[in-house]
């Protein structure tokens, strides 16, 4: 089945999300769709999956124009979407999830689970997906859950699969086996749209690539025609430098020290187990790991958001294990939260208000029990300029800024103070390439001023680019530590493959403490 989009345009208010987009999706081919957040990828795919109707242009299936009034029409035409955020019922089994909404029925309209199971297993076997049919979703690792989403789409006889940022939640090893499945699907004649902002994935998996920028297709071809640099330039609209420009670290005194930190939720669920690590002045330490292996809890332990069940946290030789969030903040611990929308900002507040979200109570903005708003606005305007937060006015609601500018606003708020330790959690998630460069340079600059920086990220590339040392977390433990000193020419550093293995918990069966994989660079 061949799908063509011709001259698709879609406008939201004053924003042209898609303009005159032409795209052909061929069977037996992986089409990489590359673009930054806000480039219009999601809008385009939502048009294709029937959620939005285009203002102009048409969709052709095998040459015949079609109109989708809703997602049902699109599914019936054989288009299946695998969302970035899974839509699965955790307490249902794999089969139950797959058949949800299209349940096969037997005698007397009763659910026919046996037939369903058989069908699911057939699809399973054909594409080598290796998914257990009767396990509950909540007991499956994320990588397998994603395969269940693909199963769902195939069960509805989709010939066109749209995969929206499918690798965001996977370890490097899981990505490899995921790519194998994608290739198997392609070889079976399915058409696949692979949406991503990661250039090396396009290089590896896509047969053709289309680059989207500000709602337009700005580049088109086979990946081999382009270098990663070409693609990045098309995506951003200007040359992009990949290297962070990081000199060798000169670590000083220990700023942060965790000793045997343990966190148990609800008296039984172990979230952090005996974690010991340290961060020194003038170095960037990265925490690598697949999402959900205790990184969030680790950050909560350091910033005081959640209490500990054991162990201690020391900051500049002061015990702060039981200090409040505000006390730690006042001591010079800055925190860039992993989810800026939910915990780092208030979308309905102005940019200026967001700039003082955690410092409103003290000098220089507080005057007794009042807040000096003139001062707040002055400061915010200056910080916006200094940190390249692009907003027409500091009175504008922060919710209407782009993701990158929101994040720069949070970075400005946290770094603009007199800090000694920066805890940055997923500092560039959902942020455009230009802002990523900027935020990275700010974090390195912060290190070079002699501060300690701790970066938690599920993007291994980010950890490798920025960190002087790397800890790997798995199952609530720190299971490995790597030195990441690189030579001038960028060679050396920690071994990506070894870190990947550690992220998957391999080779560390009964090694509760760190340093088992130490010295990988040697």
């Amino acid at each position, binding site marked *: 089945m061949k799908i063509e989009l011709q001259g698709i345009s879609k406008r939201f208010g*004053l924003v042209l999300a898609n303009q005159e987009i032409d795209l052909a999706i061929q069977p037996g081919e992986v089409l990489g769709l590359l673009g930054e957040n806000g480039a219009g990828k999601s809008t385009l795919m939502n048009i294709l999956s029937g959620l939005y109707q285009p203002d102009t242009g048409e969709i052709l299936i095998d040459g015949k124009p079609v109109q989708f009034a809703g997602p049902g029409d699109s599914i019936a035409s054989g288009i299946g979407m695998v969302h970035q955020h899974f839509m699965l019922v955790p307490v249902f089994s794999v089969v139950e999830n797959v058949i949800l909404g299209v349940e096969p029925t037997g005698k007397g309209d009763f659910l026919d689970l046996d037939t369903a199971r058989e069908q699911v297993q057939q699809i399973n076997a054909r594409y080598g997906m290796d998914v257990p049919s009767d396990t509950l979703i909540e007991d499956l690792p994320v990588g397998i859950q994603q395969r269940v989403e693909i199963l769902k789409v195939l069960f509805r006889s989709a010939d066109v699969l749209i995969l929206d940022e499918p690798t965001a939640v996977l370890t490097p090893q899981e990505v490899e086996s995921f790519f194998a499945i994608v290739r198997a699907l392609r070889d079976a004649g399915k058409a696949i749209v692979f949406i991503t902002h990661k250039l090396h994935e396009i290089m590896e998996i896509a047969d053709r690539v289309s680059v989207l920028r500000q709602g337009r297709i700005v580049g088109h071809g086979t990946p081999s025609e382009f270098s990663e640099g070409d693609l990045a330039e098309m995506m951003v609209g200007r040359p992009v430098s990949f290297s962070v420009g990081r000199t060798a670290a000169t670590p000083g005194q220990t700023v942060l020290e965790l000793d045997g930190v343990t966190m148990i939720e609800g008296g039984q669920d172990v979230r952090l187990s005996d974690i010991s690590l340290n961060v020194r002045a003038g170095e960037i330490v990265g925490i690598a790991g697949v999402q959900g292996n205790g990184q969030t809890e680790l950050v909560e332990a350091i*910033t005081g*958001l959640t209490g500990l069940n054991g162990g201690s946290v020391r900051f500049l030789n002061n015990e702060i294990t039981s200090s*409040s*969030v*505000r006390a730690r*903040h006042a001591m010079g611990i800055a*925190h860039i*939260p992993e989810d800026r929308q*939910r*915990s*780092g*900002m*208030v*979308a*309905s*507040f102005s940019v200026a*208000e967001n700039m003082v*979200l*955690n410092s*409103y*109570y003290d000098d220089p903005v*507080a005057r007794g*029990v*009042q*807040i000096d*708003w003139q001062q707040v*606005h*002055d400061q*915010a*305007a*200056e910080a*916006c*300029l200094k940190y390249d937060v692009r*907003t*027409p*006015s*500091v*009175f*504008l609601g922060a919710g209407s800024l782009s993701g990158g500018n929101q994040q720069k606003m949070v970075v400005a708020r946290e770094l603009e103070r007199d800090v000694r330790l920066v805890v940055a959690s997923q500092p560039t998630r959902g942020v455009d390439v230009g802002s990523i460069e900027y935020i990275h340079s700010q974090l390195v600059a912060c290190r070079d001023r002699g501060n300690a920086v701790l970066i938690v990220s599920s993007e291994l590339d980010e950890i490798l680019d920025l960190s002087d040392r790397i800890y790997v977390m798995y199952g609530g433990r720190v299971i490995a530590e790597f030195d990441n000193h690189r030579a001038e020419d960028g060679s050396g550093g920690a071994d990506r493959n070894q870190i990947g293995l550690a992220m998957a918990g391999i080779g560390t069966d009964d090694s509760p403490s760190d340093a088992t994989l130490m010295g990988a660079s040697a």
Partner: protein
Amino acid sequence: MSQTEHKSDTTRDAVRALMAPPIDRDGAWRELFMVPLAAVMLALLFGALIMMATSVSPATILQSFIAMARGSVGSLHAISETLTATIPLVLAGLGIGLAFRAGLFNIGAEGQMVVGGLAAAVASFSLTGLPSIIHLPLVLMVGLAVGALYAAIAGFLRATTGAHEVISTIMLNLISFRLLDYFLRQPFIQKEGRSDPISKAVLESAELPRLLSFFDGNLRLHAGLFIMLAAVLLVYWLLYRSKLGFAFRISGENPQAARYAGIRSGLTIILAMAIAGALAGLAGATQITGVLGRASPGFSAGIGFDAIAVALLGRSHPVGILLAGLLFGALEAGGRQMQVDAGVSIDLISIIQALIIIFVAAPLLVKRILPPLFRTKSVNEDAS
């Protein structure tokens, strides 16, 4: 010489540009005022339709709307009645709006009014021999403090056990009604020689002075008007100028961000509830010392519930609450006149009030019914 000067000049210009007020004033204004205004118009219209459906003649309907206008703003007496009804609605409404800004749905204004009013009544007749300048403020402070403590119970339960304030304040309302019945029969409160539950009368030294009695002794408007206006200013200052109010607003808009910002949620909840209760308690106290002169069963008369509607209609903004309170006060006063002049039941006023709330709560519905009011300029330009 001037490269640095020049640079700082451009920086200053850029800073000044960033501090320019937001552009979309018009759209925000529409959203803020047009929906409530349209809701009121639609509610009156539907009220008329309901009267027609119950076979009231068009002439009577017209007559009842004229009576409503006459009874609310048609004379000095009418205005006095409107303002008198407005005072407790706005005070309690401010409390509900403030709690709402902090993310708390305080259904308990009625109960807080009851306990605050009762405590004020007790203080007003049991403290004898005080000059008015001391006695009256003291009585009002007692009402305020007891209302605050009563609401703080719900705040405390929410902060420590997670018990939802909607449930606990409803329960506290029920408890307050029975507490009132009980205390009104106690010898030190019950009026001598009466067997029914009714309190002793407020001493003259604790009465809120009537403002227009020099003009006409029947005009009930009292000095609570100034308390109400002061409360509007105070709540505005608290929400938009003070540190505490900023913490309230962060907690209300995004509790998770508040936690990350180091704001102690438990304390914030208890304080917000206490201030809400203080305002409702003050509403009860002004009602006792300004209008009723004694406490009796059901003296709160559902004002604490109507105040929820006032807070909603006023979008939890102090000035909005003042305007909404004036409207509801006018409906209250006008409704009585309507009953007298046109013989239409005062229940119609409750229906109209309920309709206003439904329309305010469903802005999309209002926009669908009255699209011309919400057509923005840019769309018009596009269309032309």
